[in-house]
């Protein structure tokens, strides 16, 4: 995070500090090419301000979120490199990166690390059937009206998905569909394509659905990054369009990116004997236990109980021995409790009790404990089995027989000796 203090120093580009009620913190730094260029995005940035983000210049602050609105800049500022951005994200910072057709290499390099491959410099996204009517050049169809939203409730609400198209002017990117961390939020329609430049239309590389316009990335440590091929998406010009859904779209993706919604967490979890309720150092095979986990979700500036029917518990030792769905038993204002009655496997070893809840758009929740399951104690095995009674009786009679013989032997000594003498 230390490098972020240098952000404040490199404000030649211009940086805004924004504060909001995000779970991750409320300090935002905004990169713009020139300070007055911020006015181009004033509507968007103001909206952050109204959401409680602190958009003031304050020298000595660290930042929780960064917005890069300087697609054509060759540098981020003195001393700030792509690696700094990566460690910013690694340490939990959230990032919105906006691009344009003049995207510089440094942005491209940054995006590449997230599996987002921007098109060549100068190429634009074009759609001849769905676009904003250009005011100057009739044949310029590069302000695309895109409405191929991803069905990810955690990021985009019904309002956006079922609403007006989003105006997009910028560059396309290819997204790695195999990467589970990356979700394309807005893609091209079947008629959309990426053209190298208006002059050379033959140079079509990406077309249709494989064009990523806006993509969201959530790291394993739950930092969130949004790549938009268009910086104009956030500009006053496009936000001002009445026919477009940009305002709502931008609001929701920035809310998501800055951890203002769909933030999932487990506040507590516990496991204990079903009968006594105590948690031992280790269990024994076939124990009946209770496992509970509390989940809450953050939205509307507060933690709420998280409601779902697909929360699963696993007991794993190399392979899952148990996989059971937990039931929601109670909810209070802050969290919902998921409960499971588990019978431990008939197998001893070091098990991992895990709730591994990963749903697209939501923060990953991984709760795990390493728990030893021990074999029964030597005196815990069933004893005095009815099947074994004959043996008990058998050995008991042997003892008795021995005693009887001994008694007879000792008692009868003298008469016997007399007898053996007679023989």
């Amino acid at each position, binding site marked *: 995070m230390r490098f972020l203090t240098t952000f404040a120093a490199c404000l030649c580009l211009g940086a805004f500090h924004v504060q909001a009620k995000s779970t991750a913190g409320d300090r935002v730094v905004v990169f713009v090419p020139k300070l007055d260029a911020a006015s181009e995005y004033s509507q968007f940035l103001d909206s952050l301000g109204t959401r409680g983000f602190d958009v003031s210049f304050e020298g000595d602050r660290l930042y929780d979120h960064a917005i890069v609105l300087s697609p054509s800049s060759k540098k981020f500022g003195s001393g700030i490199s792509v690696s700094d951005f990566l460690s910013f*994200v690694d340490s939990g910072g959230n990032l919105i990166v906006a691009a344009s057709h003049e995207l510089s290499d440094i942005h491209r390099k940054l995006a590449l*690390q997230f599996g987002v491959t921007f098109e060549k410099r100068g190429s634009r996204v074009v759609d001849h059937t769905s676009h904003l009517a250009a005011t100057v050049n009739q044949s310029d169809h590069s302000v695309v009206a895109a409405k191929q939203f991803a069905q990810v409730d955690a990021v985009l609400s019904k309002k956006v998905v079922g609403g007006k198209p989003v105006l997009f002017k910028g560059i396309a990117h290819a997204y790695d569909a195999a990467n589970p961390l990356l979700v394309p939020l807005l893609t091209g329609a079947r008629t959309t394509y990426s053209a190298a430049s208006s002059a050379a239309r033959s140079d079509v590389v990406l077309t249709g659905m494989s064009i990523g316009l806006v993509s969201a990335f959530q790291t*394993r440590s739950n930092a969130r990054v949004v790549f938009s091929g268009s910086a104009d998406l956030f500009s006053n010009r496009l936000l001002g369009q009445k026919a477009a859904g940009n305002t709502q779209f931008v609001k929701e993706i920035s809310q998501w990116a800055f951890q203002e919604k769909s933030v999932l967490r487990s506040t507590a979890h516990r496991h204990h004997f079903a009968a006594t309720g105590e948690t031992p150092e280790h269990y024994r095979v076939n124990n009946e236990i209770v496992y509970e986990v509390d989940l809450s979700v953050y939205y509307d500036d507060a933690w709420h109980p998280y409601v779902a029917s697909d929360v699963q518990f696993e007991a794993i030792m*190399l392979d899952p021995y148990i996989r059971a769905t937990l039931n929601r038993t109670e909810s209070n204002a802050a969290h919902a409790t998921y409960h499971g009655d588990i019978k431990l496997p008939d197998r*001893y070893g*070091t098990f991992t009790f895990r709730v591994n809840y990963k749903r697209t758009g939501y923060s990953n929740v991984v709760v795990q404990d390493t728990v030893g399951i*021990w074999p029964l104690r030597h005196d815990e095995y069933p004893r005095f089995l009815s099947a074994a009674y004959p043996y008990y009786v058998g050995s008991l009679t042997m003892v008795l027989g021995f005693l009887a013989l001994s008694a007879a032997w000792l008692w009868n000594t003298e008469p016997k000796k007399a007898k053996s003498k007679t023989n």
Partner: protein
Amino acid sequence: MARKVLGLAAAEQLSLLRIAILGLISVVAIGSRLYSVIRFESIIHEFDPWFNFRTTKYLVNNGFDSFWNWFDETAWYPLGRVVGGTVYPGIMVTSATIYNALHFLNIPVDIRNVCVFLAPVFSAFTAIATYHMGKEVKNATAGLLAAAFIGVAPGYISRGLRSSCSCSPSSCGCGRCGLGSALYAALTAVFYFYMVSAWGGYVFIINLIPLHVFALLAMGRYSNRLYVSYSTFYVLGTLASMQIPFVGFQPTRTSEHMAALGTFGLLQLVAFAHFARTLVPQHHFQVLLRGAVVSLFVVGLGGLWTGRFYSLWDTGYAKIHIPIIASVSEHQPTPWPNFFFDLNFLIWLLPAGIFFSFRELTDNHVFLILYSIFAAYFAGVMVRLILTLTPIRTYLNVKDVEAAGSEAEAVPVAKTEAVAGVPAAEQISVSKSGKKGKGKKSEKTEEPAKSEPAPSSKPATAPGDERWNEELVVMANFLYLLFMFQWHCSWVTSNAYSSPSVVLASRSPDGSQHIIDDFREAYYWLRQNTKPDAKVLSWWDYGYQLAGMADRTTLVDNNTWNNTHIATVGKILASDEDTAYELARRHDVDYVLVVFGGMLGYSGDDINKFLWMIRIAQGVYPDDVEENAFFTGRGQYSIGDDASPTMKRSLMHKLSYYRFSSVMGGQGMDRVRRQPLPTEVTVDNFEEAFTSENWMVRIYKVKDLDNLGRSHHKVADFVGRP
């Protein structure tokens, strides 16, 4: 002197002398085992004792009940190990008892010291037990001589450090078995129980004794006392041995124990036949029964043998079928020099001893013969079993010496033949020793070294006065041999068997000693720099040490109970970086530890063991690991740039040679393999965490998954490699 000793008043003197000699032998036995403690320090040297130490500590701290039910989560992660049920608890219980007893007497000793000094002390007991057995077989002087032999025999020291205590009951047991008293048989059973509780080698005894009984039966030497001894021993011993959870029901299920069971049944039948014959004398029950019962015995033997026992019979079996067993150096066939090294002249006196046993074929001698033949065979098959051979050799050699002594006595009577007819014992033994021995002999005739007050002079001091020339020759010869033997033993003990495998000593050119302490350095690094529940993957050889010294969770250790798990570790080390990474993460591995000798020339390193890892892995995962792929096109085991691609990709190779060539310079050599180094070794998925001073131990951290979901190769491409 002889007259004096044989004088009436001297009877008590004699026993006093015996006790004194026995005491001295014990002192020698203890002393010779303390070389390593004096040289280095009071630490536990070998691998297995680390486990004994750790379990003893647990036993002392937590009591017997929790020890019995101890489930060790830190071993065999994530499977865990049921320690109470997979251990021969004798040694730990003994140590803990001693520890508690000493503490009760307000003598504060460390558990570690108890463990270190347990073996030497028990070696003294072994010597005493040997004395008693010698006494049974022959007489007190023979016993003394045998005790003296066993006290210093290096064959016993090398393994004896580990389990000498387990052998004293064995010798006791063997000795007592021939006696014919139910009481002693019962005591034997108790000792047998103790041995079972201490050492897996009890199987040897439980096969040998029945064999002895069987041989006696087959020879028609059945007697009631045989019945009494064996039946009592077997019934009690077997029931008692089943109390050890690790042994469990084996005595009734596995074929190793079937011989004993079969012999027991046979003995019952024979006894019954005898009994019947006393009532109906004219019938030839015995003959009939013997025939019937021999077949029964054979059927009993013909059951399924478990693999470990197969490997005893066929040296090649293990290599083919069970690489895990063959990979242990202790399970290798014994090389001949080793025999001589460990047993010195005892080895070539052995046949002579057998010869003399045959000449006077008592029941005890039958036992000796059988024992020696089998022990010799097994010792040939497995290095480890030299242990079993040692005691019997000492007896037989005592017989030799004895025989030589008594023959010498006979010489004056035989008069003229004297010089030419140097006792038969001599000739036989000398012929075995070959020309060398003969040369020695002729040299030594001039030099009467009679001045040695060795205990062994006792058997020799009996002969009459006349003609002591010839006697002197024989005696001098033997004294010389005995002297040489003692000398050899102390040398071997002090040099070969007292260097701990944890700490290595090397000599620099100027003769000063340099201690190489990389293992402990690395283990302590782990102990201090990793989180307490870190899981460390290493080859199983280091498992006990890791658990003991580093106190970290291990995946596999020297208790090789789960072949699959070991094979998995082998596979991780043998497969390419990505596969290994995936597997290592699946097993929650935090650190990988490899032992590398290339810098120092330490030949017992992991690259040299690597072929075993591959073989073991291949045994379980034949689709994933292929031994041949690790050899070059010309079938060489190469590690340099000409190594096979599979070899170069393998994790073991990478972790061993990572950064090595840059440290050694362009023309660096691997000092173990004497091969040029591979020039470019990259490791992306693992991060070098620690490399010890002499590079003997290298520890790598398994990297976390990349936060951005990239492969570590990509990350390394982006960040750059050192």
